[in-house]
C-alpha cells in the first residue's frame, strides 16, 4: 500500500518534470509571455527607461523572440538577474532565455548544461580607472583594489591576469553594476573591471565621464550571446534563428523602414524566405511563416539595434569594430536561410 502510493507520486512527479522540460515553446505560448532574464540595469544593454519600459541591446533580442513566437514584442516579462542569479534562474525555468551580457564559455555550455545560440556582441575584458591615478597600463596596477562582479568570467580572468603578471590585488566582490559604480566613484576601489562594452556603458552614465579612462589592455575574449537550457532543441533553434534573422536582415538590407515593402516580394530568394513569402521556414520549428518578419519589425535589424542602443551616436559610443558584418571586416555572420 505504502509503496504503491510512493511510486504513484514519484511517477506523477517525474512525468510532470518531463513535461516541463520539453516544450518551452508550448509553455511560452500557454503563458502568453516570454520570461527573459536580463541584467539588473546596464544602460544601453538592458535598463528600464523613465516609464519603466525595458530597452537596450539585449532587451531587443528578447523582444524579437517574443515578436516571433507570440506576435507581440511587448509580451515579455523582463526578469532582472545578477551575475550570480542568472544561471539558477535559467536552469530552474524561472526564465525561458537569458540575454544578459553573458560570455559563451566551455563550462557554461558543457557543464552548466546551457546552449548558447550565438553571439550578439564580441567583447573582451577591460579596465577603467580614474584619470587622477595617472595609470596608463593595466601592468601598473600592482597592489590596486579592484571592484568585480561576482559570478562572472571577469573574476576568473582577473585572477589569471594578475597571477600570470606576478602582481597582487585586493578584490572587492560586488553583486550588481550599480553597487560597483557606487564603490568605484567614491574611490573605495581604484579599478573597475568588466567587459569593455559594460565599462563604456557604465562610464556613459557618470557625471564626469571624462575623469575616467579605459586602459588599453583587453585581457580576454568575451563573446556575449543569448542562451537557453540545454535539451530543448526546438526552443534553442527558435532563439538562434531569431538572432540570425536580425543579423541576416542587416546583411541583406532589410530594415524596419522597408520591411513592409519587401514583404510584398523581392527578387532575392533569401529575403523572400526570411520574410515568409517563399517556402515555409517557420513551419519547420512550429511557428508561422511571418515569424522572422515580426522579429525584424520589432526593433529593426541587428545594425539598427546596435546604432540605436550602443552605437557611435549614443552616449555609450561603441564602434562596430569586431561587431561589424563579415562583409565589412567584422565577425557578425549568420548561416544562410534555406
Amino acid at each position, binding site marked *: 500500500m505504502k509503496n504503491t502510493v510512493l511510486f504513484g507520486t514519484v511517477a506523477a*512527479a517525474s512525468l510532470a*518534470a518531463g513535461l516541463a522540460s520539453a516544450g518551452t515553446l508550448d509553455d511560452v505560448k500557454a503563458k502568453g509571455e516570454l520570461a527573459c532574464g536580463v541584467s539588473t540595469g546596464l544602460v544601453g544593454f538592458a535598463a528600464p527607461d523613465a516609464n519603466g519600459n525595458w530597452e537596450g541591446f539585449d532587451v531587443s533580442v528578447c523582444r524579437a523572440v517574443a515578436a516571433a513566437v507570440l506576435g507581440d514584442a511587448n509580451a515579455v516579462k523582463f526578469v532582472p538577474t545578477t551575475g550570480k542569479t542568472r544561471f539558477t534562474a535559467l536552469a530552474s525555468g524561472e526564465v525561458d532565455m537569458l540575454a544578459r551580457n553573458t560570455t559563451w564559455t566551455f563550462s557554461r555550455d558543457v557543464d552548466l548544461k546551457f546552449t548558447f545560440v550565438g553571439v550578439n556582441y564580441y567583447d573582451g575584458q577591460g579596465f577603467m580607472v580614474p584619470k587622477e591615478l595617472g595609470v596608463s597600463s593595466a601592468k601598473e*596596477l600592482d*597592489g590596486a583594489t579592484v571592484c568585480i562582479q561576482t559570478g562572472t568570467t571577469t573574476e576568473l580572468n582577473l585572477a589569471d591576469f594578475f597571477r600570470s603578471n606576478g602582481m597582487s590585488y*585586493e*578584490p572587492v*566582490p560586488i553583486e550588481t553594476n550599480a553597487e560597483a559604480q557606487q564603490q568605484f566613484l*567614491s574611490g573605495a576601489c*581604484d579599478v573597475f573591471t568588466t567587459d569593455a562594452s559594460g565599462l563604456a556603458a557604465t562610464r556613459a552614465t557618470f557625471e564626469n565621464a571624462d575623469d575616467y579612462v579605459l586602459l588599453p589592455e583587453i585581457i580576454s575574449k568575451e563573446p556575449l550571446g543569448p542562451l537557453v537550457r540545454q535539451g530543448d532543441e526546438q526552443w534553442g533553434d527558435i532563439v538562434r534563428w531569431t538572432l540570425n534573422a536580425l543579423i541576416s536582415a542587416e546583411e541583406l538590407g532589410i530594415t524596419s523602414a522597408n520591411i513592409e515593402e519587401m514583404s510584398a516580394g523581392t527578387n532575392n530568394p533569401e529575403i523572400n524566405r526570411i520574410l515568409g513569402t517563399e517556402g515555409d521556414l517557420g513551419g519547420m520549428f512550429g511557428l508561422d511563416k511571418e515569424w522572422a518578419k515580426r522579429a525584424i519589425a520589432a526593433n529593426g535589424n541587428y545594425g539598427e539595434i546596435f546604432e540605436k542602443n550602443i552605437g557611435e551616436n549614443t552616449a555609450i559610443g561603441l564602434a562596430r569594430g569586431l561587431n561589424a558584418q563579415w562583409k565589412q571586416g567584422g565577425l557578425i555572420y549568420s548561416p544562410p536561410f534555406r
Partner: protein
Amino acid sequence: MAMADQEAKQSFRLSMLIYDSRYRAMTIQVVALILFIIGAGWLVNNAAQNLAALGKPLSFGFLSQPAGYDINQRLIEYTSQSTHGRAAIVGLLNTLLVATVGCILATILGVTIGVLRLSKNWLVARLMTVYIETFRNVPVLLWIVFTMAIFIEVFPAPREFKGADPSATMKLWDSVALTNRGVFIPKPVFESGSGIVGIVFLLSLVGIWFFRRWARAKQEATGVILPTFWISLGIFFIPAIATQIILGNPISLEYPVLKGFNFKGGLHLRNSFLSLTAALVIYTSAFIAEAVRSGIMAISKGQTEAAAALGLRYNRIMSLVILPQAMRVIIPPLISQYLNLTKNSSLAIAVGYMDITGTLMGITLNQTGREMETVLLTMLIYLTISLIISTAMNVYNNSIALKER
C-alpha cells in the same frame, strides 16, 4: 493488570485504533510518521529525478577542482589555484570570525544596555529604550547596508592621504588610517623572545586565578574584602609589560603606511567585515538587552531589598545576588540570539564579505553550477555550527541552573 491486558487483547477490534482513546494517540502518530516519510521521500526522489533529467546527478567532485577566483579576506593560505573545497573553508572561517566577534561584542553591549535600561536615572533609561526600539525594529539587512554606505561615503579614499598637503591624515599618532576601504591598524610582529613574553603572560593568568581563589578563601574565613579587580588588573599587565621592556621589545608593532594604491603593512580590517559586524552587533545587542532586562525583572524585588538590608551596595547586589539568578532566565533567549546572529551573518553577501554564503554558496555555486550540492553543504554547515553553539550554551545553562540541595 495482566487480566485487563488479556481482556483488551481478546476483544481488540480494528475500529478501536480510532475510537479507543488508549490507542488513538498512537494511531495518529503512526499515520503522521508515514505521511512524513512519504512526503520527504517524494521530495528527495523528485529532486534526484529532476537533477538526473537535467543531466546533473548529485556529485561533490567539484570540491577538489581549482576554484580560479581570489578571496580578499583569508585566515588561511589560499590562492586562486586552490580548490573549491579550500575556498569553502576560507568562507567558513570568515563566517566563524564574524559570528565569534559578533557574539562577544553583542553580549557586552547588550548586557550593559539591558542593565542601564533599568537605571534609576530617567535620561539614561529612556536613551536605552530608544536604542533598543530603534535597532530592534529595523531589519538587520538595512543596518548592514547602511553601515557600509557610511563607510564608503564618509571616510576618505587612500589616495586622499597622498601629497604634500593631503586632505586626509592618519589618526592616533599616525598609527591608524580610517579609509573607505576599511580601517588599517598596527599589527603586532613577534620576534625572537616574544615567546617568553607570551609565557609570562600566561603565567600571570594562572596567577590571577590562584590569587582570586586565595582572596575568596580569605574573605570567607575573615570577612576581609580585597580590591581583587585592581590587583588582578595589575597582575594581568605588569609582569608581561616588564618582560617586554627587559627583553628589549621583542613584540613590536608594524604600522600601516601608504604605498602605491593602498595602505600596506599593519592589519587591514575591511569595511565589509566592519560594517557586517557592527550591524549584527547593534541589532542583536538590542535583543540581548531585552533578554537581560526581563531576566533581571524576573528576580523578585525582595531579593534586592534583602541584599540591601545586609548592607550590600548596588553593584554588589547586581553581581552577587541578582545577575547569578537572572542568568537562568537570560541564557535560553541568549542562545537563540547567538544562533540568530550566526545565521544573520549570511547576509554578508550584501556588502561583499566573503563568508560561506559568499564562497561556497556564492561564487563556487555560480562557477560550477552545482546548486543542489552547494546549498545542501551550506545548510549542513550552518546546522552544525548552530548545534554546536546550542549544545555549548546548554551545557553552560545546566551548570548554572538552580541546584537543589
